[in-house]
């Protein structure tokens, strides 16, 4: 036994009826394909007890309403027989079992009803001649619905074995006891396992033309289909590949057997040597009237140099178990189309001889689902049982893994070789009648996926994958309920089981208190998302916040430092640290202009790589204090500047006399003594009347009208007033203009002669008024 059984997968079969029926633990128990009544939820298990393997007493056990009962058998049959095969109970509650005595002569018995074992001995009719080495290898109830006949028949396939050869294959129809199904004599065949191909017919709605073609083609032999129909046209090729056609063909096709023959093991020096040879599969149609259509299903393209065991075959699919010491794979092959799939690996590995693997392969006639049952057993108990369902169609390769419910009082010390219920899927409780007392409940199909294991770093990926897995199983609702979601304890448990499976042991313990899958999920989310996802995003925002930190002019150094250390500590708590030089550089870079001097000083006079962050803060603080001390002075200084500006503006209005003079000279040198006039006017405003003169001949340069100077021109003064107004506004708006601006004004004053002149003239005028 390899690993410890996982709680989710392991099945234990706690109690057994055998303890009451047969107290002796020394008995070997052989359990064979069981019956399941199609119209009652009864399970009958054919089993035999013996103290020596292969010499056992047949018995039937029936599970009815949870109680096991042993069916009576006649004492005469109680000696030295062992069960070989059994068939499903049909609708009339008739099943068949074959028993064989030690001379390998098979006997056929009919089981009528679930509780009454009426053993009819067909022995003489089955084998009139006393062959030795006959062996029943198959017993199946076939329901042939397709074709003209609708009867059900039970077929026994019997082979005669030579020492290492199969001599004859005979298939008997039990109802008529006609030996009408004689197959081929395959002299080259060696060890043989068998199975039959047939199944229920499933009718799909389709186009009439297609349906007709399908019907015709379905009556052709497999070989014809492969070699001809696929070649005729594309439509036909698609047609014969269609699952519904496959089903149709299976329902109508002649019964055949798949023979798996391989080299027998050689005993050499007392050791059993098994060849690494997958063997050969042969498909033999036993009912073909024209001739035995034999098709060699060559395994070589699929499997080479390995040991295979044919688990079983249904509807042309074969289940192979690759069991060489290095491999432990379960294949399901469609040998005709050469498609195959490998089932998910089991949790258990075959490990030595202490654990044996038991297989079953079948198809459910109700759901059309193919199922593989795989059980591991130790000597007296089943360690684990798994079921894989292949749903929908072969082509979709959808594998559904199910557990088998543990509340079953399953009587198996040793698991069945092939669970018969598997064949019809009824044992799984997908009986369409939905009987409550169905002994094995189908927990619900949960698709098998490999759950990723959560560790400290992979939460993001883990949660994504787990979400997908839960979604795929329709369990995500349990974690994120929609408004339609109803409370579903069972599904919640399944989701919980999935989550537990995906958690390491220590985490399992931590979330053990959580009551629901959702709670577990949320716990994990809170726990991990802090470390991963949100933290990354937070880290990102914090980083950009850190980058963007800039000290404002008004900020005090202290408040800025608090801000900065705040961000830094947040980032540090998220696991990222900054080294000192980075912090110092960041600090210095984010200083406002007024710290420029100290920043430059620090940069120049200390090694930035060596100075600590705190030290830098200390230096800056000292500078800040100095700055505060000087602040009042600096304010005065600035106000002074502004004042100066105002003064200058004011002075500007009082145009300095020498400048005025120069201008006046320029402007009025053609007039009669203009300089003097102006000078007089300015210097002696009070004495204007002394300069009365005749204005009648004076022409204004501005408006070309007589009787006034240009300087007195009303047009001009109006214009000036407008400009003065705008000047005033400008002054109001810019009260804190710096020196440089003032100088510019002064320059303006010098360059814009007209304006200056005007202002001076204006002043004259005002003064004159």
């Amino acid at each position, binding site marked *: 036994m390899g690993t410890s059984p996982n709680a989710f997968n392991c099945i234990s079969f706690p109690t057994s009826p055998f303890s009451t029926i047969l107290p002796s633990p020394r008995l070997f128990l052989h359990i064979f394909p069981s019956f399941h009544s199609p119209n009652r939820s009864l399970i009958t298990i054919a089993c035999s007890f013996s103290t020596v393997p292969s010499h056992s007493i047949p018995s039937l056990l029936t599970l009815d309403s949870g109680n096991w009962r042993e069916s009576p058998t006649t004492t005469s049959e109680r000696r030295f027989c062992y069960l070989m095969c059994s068939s499903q109970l049909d609708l009339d509650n008739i099943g068949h079992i074959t028993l064989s005595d030690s001379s390998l002569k098979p006997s056929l018995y009919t089981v009528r009803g679930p509780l009454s074992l009426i053993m009819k001995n067909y022995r003489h009719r089955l084998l009139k001649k006393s062959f030795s080495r006959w062996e029943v290898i198959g017993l199946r109830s076939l329901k042939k619905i397709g074709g*003209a006949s609708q009867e059900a028949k039970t077929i026994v396939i019997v082979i005669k074995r030579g020492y290492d050869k199969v001599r004859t294959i005979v298939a008997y129809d039990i109802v008529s006891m006609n030996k009408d199904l004689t197959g081929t004599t395959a002299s080259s065949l060696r060890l043989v396992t068998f199975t039959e191909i047939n199944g229920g017919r499933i009718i799909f709605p389709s186009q009439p033309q297609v349906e*007709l073609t399908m019907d*015709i083609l379905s009556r052709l032999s497999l070989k*014809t289909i*492969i*070699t001809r129909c696929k*070649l005729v046209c594309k439509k036909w090729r698609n047609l014969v590949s269609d699952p519904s056609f496959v089903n149709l063909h299976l329902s109508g096709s002649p019964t055949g057997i798949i023979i798996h023959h391989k080299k027998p093991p050689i005993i050499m020096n007392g050791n059993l040597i098994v060849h690494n040879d997958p063997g050969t599969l042969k498909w033999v149609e036993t009912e073909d009237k024209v001739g035995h259509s034999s098709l060699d299903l060559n395994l070589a393209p699929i499997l080479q140099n390995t040991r295979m065991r044919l688990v079983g075959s249904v509807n042309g699919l074969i289940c192979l178990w690759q069991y060489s010491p290095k491999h432990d794979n379960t294949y399901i092959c469609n040998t005709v189309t050469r498609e195959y799939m490998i089932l998910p690996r089991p949790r258990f590995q075959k490990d030595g001889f202490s654990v044996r693997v038991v297989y079953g392969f079948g198809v459910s006639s109700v759901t059309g689902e193919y199922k593989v049952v795989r059980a591991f057993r130790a000597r007296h108990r089943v360690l684990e049982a798994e079921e894989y369902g292949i749903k929908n169609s072969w082509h979709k390769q959808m594998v559904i893994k199910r557990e088998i419910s543990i509340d079953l009082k399953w009587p198996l010390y040793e698991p069945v070789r092939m669970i018969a219920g598997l064949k019809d899927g009824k044992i799984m409780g997908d009986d369409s009648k939905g009987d409550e007392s169905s002994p094995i409940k189908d927990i619900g199909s949960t698709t098998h996926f490999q759950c990723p294991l959560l560790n400290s770093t992979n939460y993001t990926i883990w949660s994504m994958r787990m979400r997908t897995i839960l979604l795929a199983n329709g369990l995500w609702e349990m974690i994120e309920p929609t408004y339609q979601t109803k409370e579903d304890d069972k599904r919640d448990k399944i989701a919980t089981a999935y989550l537990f499976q995906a958690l390491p042991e220590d985490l399992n313990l931590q979330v053990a208190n959580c009551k629901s899958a959702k709670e577990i999920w949320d716990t994990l989310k809170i726990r991990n998302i802090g470390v991963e996802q949100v933290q990354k995003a937070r880290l990102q925002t914090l980083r950009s916040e850190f980058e963007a930190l800039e000290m404002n002019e008004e900020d005090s150094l202290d408040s800025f430092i608090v801000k900065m250390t705040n961000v830094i500590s947040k980032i540090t708590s998220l696991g990222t640290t900054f080294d000192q030089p980075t912090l110092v550089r960041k600090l210095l870079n984010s200083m406002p202009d007024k710290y420029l001097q100290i920043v430059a000083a620090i940069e120049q006079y200390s090694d930035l790589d060596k100075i600590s962050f705190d030290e830098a803060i200390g230096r800056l603080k000292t500078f800040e204090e100095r700055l505060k001390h000087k602040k009042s002075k600096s304010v005065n200084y600035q106000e002074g500047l502004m004042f100066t500006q105002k003064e200058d503006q004011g002075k500007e209005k009082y145009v300095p006399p020498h400048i005025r003079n120069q201008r006046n000279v320029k402007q009025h040198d053609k007039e009669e003594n203009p300089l003097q006039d102006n000078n007089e006017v300015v210097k002696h405003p009070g004495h204007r009347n002394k300069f009365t003169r005749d204005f009648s001949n004076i022409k204004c340069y501005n408006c070309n009208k007589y009787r006034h100077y240009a300087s007195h021109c009303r047009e001009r003064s109006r214009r000036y007033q407008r400009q003065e107004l705008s000047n005033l506004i400008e002054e109001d708006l810019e009260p804190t203009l710096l020196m440089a601006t003032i100088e510019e004004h002064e320059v303006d004053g010098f360059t814009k002669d007209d304006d200056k002149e005007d202002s001076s003239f204006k002043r004259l005028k005002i003064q004159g008024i």
Partner: protein
Amino acid sequence: MSKKTLTLMSKDKQLFNIEEHLAVQSVTIRNMVKEDGASSVIPLPRVDSETLALVIEYLNRQQAPEEDEDYVKKFVDERGEIPTLLELAQAALDLDIKKLMDAACMKVADLIKDFTLEEVREALRIENDRTPEEEKAIRDEFQWAF
């Protein structure tokens, strides 16, 4: 049971009379009779008159049940032409006469079983839509089966 007569109308508007108790061997007709009493003519828009005549001949057979199988076989064997059989099978499918359809299909399958590819295409009027290369590829794929 009174011998009520039903009227069936083929694709080309020909009318055929048949007694009801014989006609209801066809599940389709039986359902129609159940539903509306089939007072009017039952149109069979996909069955031509020759085929319908055959179907009616089959339905009108007077055979003991144990000989029925053989009769159907013989009935179909006599019309060994694949196109006729296909029409018959199609009509039987539409009318849901299982035994006739089974027999017709079986006969077609028997006939084409040993045909070559070309013969199959010819018989079923199927055009070969494959290039020789594609054909060869499939042959190679299933080489083991030939």
